[in-house]
């Protein structure tokens, strides 16, 4: 049963497509890597999945879940690091969907928060203000929050960029745990070797989908070259797209 379906999806800004005619399904429990050069439309695709932008054509179909049920880690979270909030409280916000704006936390909730902080290797950091964290520690903290969200679908936009190797390995372990728990995980990644090693399914996106399927068949030198040749800039003089919309 498919989790997510893209029907001839075109997403973009001011009529210029950033994702052009994407069609296909993401199965329940998939572990899908989205790979492509800069400007390929990966972040735009995620914004489309999260409903932050409306499609220029086509549709995103979510089977039985709402965008608020998706745990989303954007590429550059607009977090105010000078805000006086502790790591513990930031992570605890992961319980929003279950506790809401007013719900109190039970002992079990507190245990869950501590377990999440432990799972990302930040035990001892609970009372630190978020402004005192390094980039890698901040990313671990956001992963802990994702853990608590307990979401069926998890979308990660370049989660390991600018993160050291040990942190990447630890966080990748969490992603693999999610896969074992049959959650659906989509991740935009730049590290081809990491994708080949850990992700069974890959979509190679270069504004238009170049290839989508088992990683070994998708990440061939031929396909990668094709993706690299994609033009990054929008064409100011482009005509209206001739492909018929459905």
């Amino acid at each position, binding site marked *: 049963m498919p989790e997510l379906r893209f029907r001839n999806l075109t997403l973009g800004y001011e009529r210029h497509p950033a994702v052009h005619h994407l069609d296909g399904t993401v199965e329940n429990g998939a572990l899908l890597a989205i790979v492509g050069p800069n400007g390929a439309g990966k972040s735009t695709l995620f914004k489309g999945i999260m409903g932050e932008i409306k499609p220029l054509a086509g549709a995103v179909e979510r089977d039985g879940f709402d*965008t608020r049920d998706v745990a989303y880690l954007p590429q550059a979270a607009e977090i105010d690091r000078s805000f006086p909030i502790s790591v513990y409280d930031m992570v605890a916000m992961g319980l929003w969907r279950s506790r809401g704006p007013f719900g109190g936390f039970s002992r079990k909730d507190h245990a869950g928060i501590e377990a999440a902080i432990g799972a990302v290797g930040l035990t001892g950091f609970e009372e630190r203000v978020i402004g005192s964290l390094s980039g890698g520690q901040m990313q671990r903290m956001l992963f802990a929050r994702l853990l608590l969200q307990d979401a069926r679908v998890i979308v990660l936009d370049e989660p390991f960029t600018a993160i050291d190797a040990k942190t990447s390995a630890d966080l990748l372990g969490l992603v693999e745990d999610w896969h074992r728990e049959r959650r659906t995980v989509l991740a935009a990644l730049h590290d081809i070797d990491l994708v080949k090693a850990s992700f069974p399914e890959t979509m190679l996106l270069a504004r238009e989908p170049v290839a989508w399927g088992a990683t070994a068949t998708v990440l061939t030198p031929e396909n990668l070259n094709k993706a690299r040749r994609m033009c990054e800039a929008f064409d100011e003089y482009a005509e209206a797209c001739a492909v018929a919309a459905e």
Partner: protein
Amino acid sequence: MLYATLIAPFAEFEFMRRALVGILALALGAPPVGVFLMLRRMSLIGDAMAHAILPGAAIGFLIAGLSLFAMAGAGLIAGFLIAIGAGLIARATQLKEDASLAAFFLISLALGVTIVSVKGSNIDLLHFLFGSVLAIDDPALALIAGVTSVSLVVLALIWRPLVLECVDPGYLHSVSRAGGPAHIAFLALVVMNLVGGFQALGTLLAVGVMILPAVIARFWARDISAIIGTAIACGAISGYAGLLLSYHANLPSGPAIILVAGALYAISVMFGPVGGLIWHALRRRHLEA
């Protein structure tokens, strides 16, 4: 001796007791709102909104004299209009936000002063601009108490969305629709507290009881709950000490309260545990880990 200085003025004079109750009530409701203003970098917007209340209150004065109901009501309306206007301007012209706000509050101030001068005397004008905390009557006390109570309840209700909207608005938007309503409720709290503070401190200084305790508290605490607690304490101390200062030195009380807060601020900038300048200057041995 100590009794005569610190307690006697309040024991002997009812107007001093009223002023103290009024200012302590304000110090309970306004500083928490001020902490959020400061953290959201809206301190100047708060100031602009305070100035905007003046023409509203002045129109109320014009229509109904020194009626609290008229002035507070008209002030509230003016405050809300400015809050909405500031929001719209911020969205439409991102680069020019500070310039539009400057225009807004200069115009409101001039408009308000003009309107008051049409009907009132110079004394009235001084009361509008700098407050008359020593002349707080029962209706004014009731207003302040009401505003503070509502403020604390609403703040408790919108606490989580408000905090999250400050620190990670993207996340809040992805899990909830509470961000927008929380923001509007917060603006309403700012306007209400400004109208409440207007009686005691006047338009020019009403925002002081919000912002100054918040800024002081930033130097003493690291966590938001602790900052709010400290801000309330600082507001209360400034109110109490300011009233005493105005009594013993025969100074206008509103400014005296703000000056005491200012002195606390200066001390905090120098010696505050969190980022105080003196700690930068002293060379202390660094810790092991």
